[in-house]
């Protein structure tokens, strides 16, 4: 059954918003999966709270529209309960790198098999323009009118240190590459992390800045961790430098689910017998 992949929900993103690129990319990937004969019934998209999260309303697949920063624990629960599910998390940069930072690092540590797409526009959009953990030093937002006094995180470096087994960066104005990165992330068995430089048309339009600096990682060996770290540090989300796009690091490693002891199926009667036996053993 081929379904209409877009719901009738009215889209409320600003014109020119990078979220559209991510949505269309995901829609194309899902359509491609269906064309290959894979059922979309087993795909779940988990979003946080923020502009990005509305994607849960717009895509006509099973979704969990969670809380700010909480995509990963919910996705972890889904995956623990049903390892057959293909779980894709869409999170914002405020969402994933501020309130949800601990969960993000633990997802990398656990190598839980899911795909994390961070819509990184480096500003809080839905709350109308405050700095986020990846805004550059001195960023003038509504909560920091004289400019931030702190350096941004480099999420790629963080994820490499955390143990993520797939680390990539995409850009919303390079859709074919973005599609390839997400596809590869979904195919990756383990925690796939993709930081997507996303244009926020209303509060932090970096189009010109990115356009002149992005380049594709070519001749880079994603199996080389040290090289990956070096490349990830080239641009630290603050100083002026060339901005590499592509897969920085990928390694095959057992995913959390493969190591987690699966419970054996048990009927209610068998279960009750075990409970009875535990009571008896306690006499």
């Amino acid at each position, binding site marked *: 059954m081929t379904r209409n992949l877009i719901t009738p929900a009215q889209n409320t993103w600003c014109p020119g918003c990078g979220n559209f690129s991510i949505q269309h990319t995901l829609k194309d990937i899902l359509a491609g999966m269906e064309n290959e004969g894979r059922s979309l019934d087993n795909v779940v998209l988990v979003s946080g709270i923020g502009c990005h999260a509305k994607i849960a309303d717009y895509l006509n697949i099973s*979704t969990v*529209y969670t*809380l700010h920063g*909480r995509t990963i624990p919910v996705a972890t629960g889904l995956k623990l309960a049903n390892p057959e599910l293909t779980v894709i998390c869409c999170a914002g940069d405020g969402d994933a790198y501020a309130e949800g930072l601990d969960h993000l690092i633990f997802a990398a540590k656990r190598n839980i098999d899911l795909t994390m797409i961070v819509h990184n526009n480096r500003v809080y959009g839905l709350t109308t323009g405050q700095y986020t953990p990846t805004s550059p030093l001195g960023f003038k937002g509504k909560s920091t009118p004289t400019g931030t006094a702190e350096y941004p995180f480099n999420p790629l470096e963080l994820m490499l240190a955390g143990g993520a087994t797939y680390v990539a960066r995409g850009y919303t104005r390079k859709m074919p590459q973005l599609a390839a990165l997400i596809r590869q992330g979904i195919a990756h068995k383990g925690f796939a992390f993709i930081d997507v430089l996303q244009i926020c048309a209303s509060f932090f339009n970096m189009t010109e800045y990115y356009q002149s600096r992005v380049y594709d990682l070519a001749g880079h060996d994603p199996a080389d961790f040290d090289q990956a770290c070096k490349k990830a540090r080239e641009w630290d989300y603050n100083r002026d430098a060339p901005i590499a796009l592509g897969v920085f690091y990928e390694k095959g490693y057992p995913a959390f689910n493969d190591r987690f002891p699966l419970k054996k199926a048990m009927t209610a009667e068998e279960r009750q017998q075990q409970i009875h036996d535990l009571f008896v053993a306690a006499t």
Partner: protein
Amino acid sequence: MKDISVLIGGRAGDGINSAGAVVAWLFSRLGYYVFVSTDYPSLIRGGHNFTMVRAADHPVGAYNDRFDYLVALNQETLDLHAPHCPDCIIVANADQVKKPGSGQTISVGEILKEESAPPVTGNSAMIGAFAKAAGIPWKTLEEVFTAHMPKAADENLRVARRAYGAVNTVRPVPVLGKAPLSLITGNEAIGLGLASGGLDSYIAYPMTPSSTLLHYLAGNAERLGITVFHPESEIAVILAGIGSAVAGKKTAVGTSGGGFCLMTEGLSFAGMAEVPLAILVSQRTGPSTGLPTYTGQADLRFVLHAGQGEFPRIVVAPADAGEAYVWSDAALRLAWKYQVPSIVLSDKSLSESTYSLRYEDLALLSIGERGTAGDNDVPYRRYRTTLSGVSPLAFPGTTGAVVKTNSYAHDEDGITTEDAALVAEMADKRRRKETALIEELAHLPCVSTGGKTDAPVALLCWGSVGNACSEVAAELGLRVIRPLVLSPFPDRQFTDACTGVERLIAVEENATGQLASLVKEHGGRADATVLKYDGRPFTPEELKLRVQEVLAS
């Protein structure tokens, strides 16, 4: 009435807990009901620990102020407890105790040396000495050691035998000769109850006094077929619990008050998104870190109101292990039937104490399942409005079903909406679930009435304090009214239970009378309160005096 109390004390790290467990097994084999409670500071080594074993010919669920036997592993135990039990039979470890007073002593060190036994068997010497002083047949010791430490029984028995031969029987305990019952802690009972209710997954972060449930289910995960997961924080716990439930697995989470603080955003999410989830909240002394290893009943208002917005929730507060088993099973089943969060509200006293139980005596409550999504539900709508407010449930992975779970206000499909009429309609739908739930609860025993059930004076209480209340009521000829379900409040059953009551005295382990105020909200009235909030549970003796004071006023 046979009613015997034993106190075993020593330093933290001395194995006081396991010594208490063995003494409990001994009494159980003699045909007694037992109750075991441990008082320990939040320390791994050092500090004073003591276990109280009470054995009676009737069920008991509280410890006494007085003791019949005192087993002292160190001088501190004697200094602290001997003055309070002038006619105690004392056995002490001569190596640690300088002034044994009237007690008998054995040198544990000497026995271990002579038997070339390892230090871990030291407590068996103390148990052997106690057993002889109490006239417990040697055969009973053999049975207990063989059944409960099969690997090291011989070694421990050799050590115990030496001590057994070294002391005299002073005050023999009567042998009751009834079949031994199961000895189960409150948290074990909660685990078994959840398992009986169909638990697939248990997710928790360690926090006293809920941790022993995590340990028990982790230890029996394979046997019971339950997935057990310990993630990075209580925030992750409840969110992962929600993810697990959304994927169709019956899931429970557990914590104490501090962890529950972190869970409140997830609790509201479960309320709005109609995700079924059972939550153990085991209270300890608060606020904040409070006394981590001591008890309290000060989180009732918190669990009733936790989370922003309004949504139905189930709160049950069992008093002992038997009720904990039955109501944990019910809490999980009801959560799934109505797609609401349910909370099992325990406390340190209940969670960590041991009770005598017989599996066959535990009658589970009959709670049917509401249907899952069927052929009539195409296309599937996660929040389809129904008369009962309960929507058909489907999970991601179900063929053809687009399952949209949403923390925002949403429409029947689970798509975000800010439409005024829709928002109110869905709020009404959630409220209808509460109405349906109240109807179902009307058929369940939500209020326990005990003591002299037609007495004009009643003790009003909830949770574990009910055990001490029962004893006091029996002595003073009072009624005991104890709501087991605190949300939705069982108004009808409560009013019925109060028929003929002229004076209602609330007994609670908090400083403000939280149940008393809840009852007032529901049109009732507590005439007096008897409150305790020092982290220690009411003993029946203390409670009796406090109630008598109120009765005299």
